[in-house]
């Protein structure tokens, strides 16, 4: 190579070089499903791009119980968006994702409209938490 950097391990294998694309962790946190919020990151002046990934984290007690469908039946995640201010400081925001428009009575704890026996069964079963992983490169 005529420019840039290359980092080798003791065996001479390339660990990372100018040709590569690395990621650093900016933030890793969990929010309550159905909630909204935002965080601002002031220490990203080296970076060109910020990536955020939201992943539902289901209640494992439901996964191993008699009715695993309860765990995956809560179904929702969050929408993510990002803005930057005049100083190019990014703010990541999250808000509840799409809500079903099922006919029936709206059940706020489930972020869905429902009625009948299913609602009764599922009452008190909250939305899954959502892990938000923020990375930058």
């Amino acid at each position, binding site marked *: 190579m005529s420019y*840039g*950097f290359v*980092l080798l*391990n*003791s065996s001479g294998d390339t*660990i*990372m*070089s*100018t*040709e*590569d*694309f*690395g*990621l*650093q*962790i*900016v933030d*890793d946190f969990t929010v309550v499903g159905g909630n909204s919020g935002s965080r601002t990151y002031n*220490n*990203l002046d*080296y*970076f*060109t*791009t910020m*990536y*955020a990934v939201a*992943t*539902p*984290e*289901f*209640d*494992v007690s439901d*996964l*191993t119980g*008699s*009715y*695993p*469908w309860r*765990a*995956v*039946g*809560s*179904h929702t995640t969050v929408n*993510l968006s990002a803005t930057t201010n005049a100083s190019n400081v990014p703010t990541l925001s999250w808000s509840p994702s*799409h809500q*079903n*428009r099922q*006919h029936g009575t709206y059940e706020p704890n489930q972020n*869905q409209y*429902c*009625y*009948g*026996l*299913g*609602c009764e069964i*599922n009452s008190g079963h909250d939305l899954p938490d959502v*892990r938000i*992983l923020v990375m*930058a*490169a």
Partner: protein
Amino acid sequence: MTYGVNFEGNLGNTCFSEKQPSIVYMGKASIKSYGGDWRCRGCSYLYRTNYNQFHSFGFGSYCVGSGLNQCYDSIVGDWGNCHAPRIDDHRLCVFEVESYEKPIVFIHYSDPDKYGGIPLATVNNGNTGPRGYPKWDIHMLLNYNNSYSASAGNYTGAASSMTLYCFSKLPDNYTSSTTIGMEIKDENGNVMYHSDWKPAVIKGMIDGNTGNSYNWPSALNVYSSMTKFAYLARDYGRFVSKTSACSHYFTFHNPLCSFRYDGGDNFTARLGRTPLYQFQDWSYTTNSDGDFLGPSKIIMPIIDGADYD
């Protein structure tokens, strides 16, 4: 920048610096345990109704024993479908890995046309590994082809076909026992990078919307050199929960179960227990009940698992 250390790639990207901790390789997760068969759980079981929809019936008012013959499926619109084959093509599998923080998991599927899996949760299991870091359980919903047979599906084959490459934030205050290598600390003395740890090298980044033609940042397109395509594990599908007077059930709408890498910048997403579907099949926006199923934004880092074997 006015001070500090920043190793920059050709794309202007920061490969590592003193500003943020690197993502480093912790190891492969190993299979720990399997869950039970989901086919029949009294009046609650999971079955497949259409290409990409899975229903779970439960607590029907008329449920008796293990039968559901009096329940009416409002999606399918047929009483008889309650007798849909109870196929053993899903069950849980718990993988385990030692990781400094909750692991960031990339999955490679060796047989993506046949087997897949959906990540559901990652939790600290309370144990500590030999390096002194916590052990984590990664709960996967296995997805395996059983050809609509009532016999047990090959769930062990499904689990063994996938490799879970686990990464974490670089451990805080990491102290190396070696005297060679490179270490970068931030202004507070925290280790942001250390050559003892293999960093996550991203081979590409899928950045697009389901339902549209996905686009590839061409500058990151280095897939031609990849041998073990692995993507950041999460559920990229969406769930719709439904209820009726008779039952409560859910549908997986095109959960992403695996990827088949086709070379170059081509891949095929495998969704649910289905034949192969492309991303474009995520295009529908509403169903008859008005549930919103519109496109979702996806950000999907890609690594080559062979870099860590």
